[in-house]
């Protein structure tokens, strides 16, 4: 147990206020909460898009990656949940969108992860990752690592 102390000291000396995460995740999860469970396992800060119109609006002030499941019918209509469309109608939320991660289920065939693809195309941002339902431990590890790399690259390419 004693060995913990030096490690903590080391971390403190390495901590750099400028390197604190300035980016985050924004996610939509219905009352079934599959996506919420996945996001909860990631070590990146996350905000939930409100489920109900009466809830206060979410407006982001820094770049983020959107994590969303797909809904809707056979032909892909209404694949993007209405709450997500409402969120994206705010120009600031569209401006800060840096990428999309999709949650889906291959059993839905042609509409698998359609919402993530639709939003990425509409707003010209990359689809970064696709996972099913609650995601596997491998998905969690890969997304955690991938997001770190992604944000590092994004910050380097900024003017």
């Amino acid at each position: 147990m004693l060995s913990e102390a030096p490690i903590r000291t080391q971390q403190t000396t390495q901590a750099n206020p400028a390197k604190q995460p300035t980016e985050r995740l924004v996610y939509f999860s219905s009352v079934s909460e599959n996506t919420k469970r996945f996001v909860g396992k990631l070590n990146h800060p996350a905000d939930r898009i409100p489920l109900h119109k009466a809830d206060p609006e979410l407006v982001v002030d820094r770049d983020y990656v959107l994590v969303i499941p797909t809904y809707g019918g056979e032909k892909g209509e209404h694949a993007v949940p209405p709450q997500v469309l409402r969120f994206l109608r705010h120009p600031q939320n569209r401006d800060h969108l840096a990428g999309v991660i999709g949650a889906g289920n291959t059993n839905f065939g042609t509409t698998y992860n359609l919402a993530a693809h639709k939003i990425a195309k509409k707003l010209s941002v990359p689809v970064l990752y696709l996972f099913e339902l609650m995601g596997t431990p491998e998905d969690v590890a890969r997304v955690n690592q991938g997001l770190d790399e992604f944000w590092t690259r994004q910050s380097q390419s900024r003017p």
Partner: protein
Amino acid sequence: MSDGVKLLGKVEAINWNRIQDEKDVEVWNRLTNNFWLPEKVPVSNDVQSWGTLTPEEKLLTMRVFTGLTLLDTIQGTVGAVALIPDALTPHEEAVYTNIAFMESVHAKSYSSIFSTLASTKEIDDAFRWSLENEYLQKKANIVMDYYHGDDPLKKKVASTLLESFLFYSGFYLPMYWSSHAKLTNTADMIRLIIRDEAVHGYYIGYKYQRGLEAATQERRDELKDYTYELMYELYENEVAYTHSLYDGVGLSEDVKKFLHYNANKALNNLGYEAMFPSTVTNVNPAILSALSPNADENHDFFSGSGSSYVIGKAVNTEDEDWDF
């Protein structure tokens, strides 16, 4: 005499304008939008393709579809109906009636495949086989026992495992044929069934989790243990069933990966973590892409840099909701 029949003081009319659980409406809309009938799928276009299968492959296909018919029969006439008395909202009851009816549509769709492709004798032989295969009978008996039990949450677990796991030893085969450009119309019909079962498993699993919210920690622990035990019991039987069907054509190991992959998803539907590691869920990519053309092997684009990112696939974005 009237064991289990509640005497109602008043019968309440269902009011769709007063919703207790928005998921009921969402799933009702999803299911009714998905409605289909077997007559809409041109299975007769598969007659020529059926003629290219060997006698052994034909026999396997008949047996697989008879096994699926049995499960759909159970779910349509017993399983989904058994969930109705436990419903927490009148809208939930209505969704179960839809599920029950669609399971009967699914059961009938296999008969429509049979009558198009096979002779009366082949059909009768396959139904006789379904009565005699010990593993098929065992899986039917396991779930029937729970459906006749009196624990509402255990019924939902059994039902979700049936919808999201037990079908897949059978669903594998039409996906396999489809990936070899055989029986492609039949596969189209099976994909409609798979999509329906996905909504059913999701919804029943969701209702299970709502039920858990009101349970004590002790009861939650008990149900979690029960779920993994039942999954394991069913899994062992599925492995034996798979070998009894697919050993002859050398596909058993490939089918088992598909079983593991779907077992994990069934557990997710109940809110539980996967039990099979990724080393045994690596489903043959041809099967996965027969299931979903968008389920690319590569679902990880983080490693791409700049322009090599996938910028959304060409999809219809004409949604009326895109007005920004």
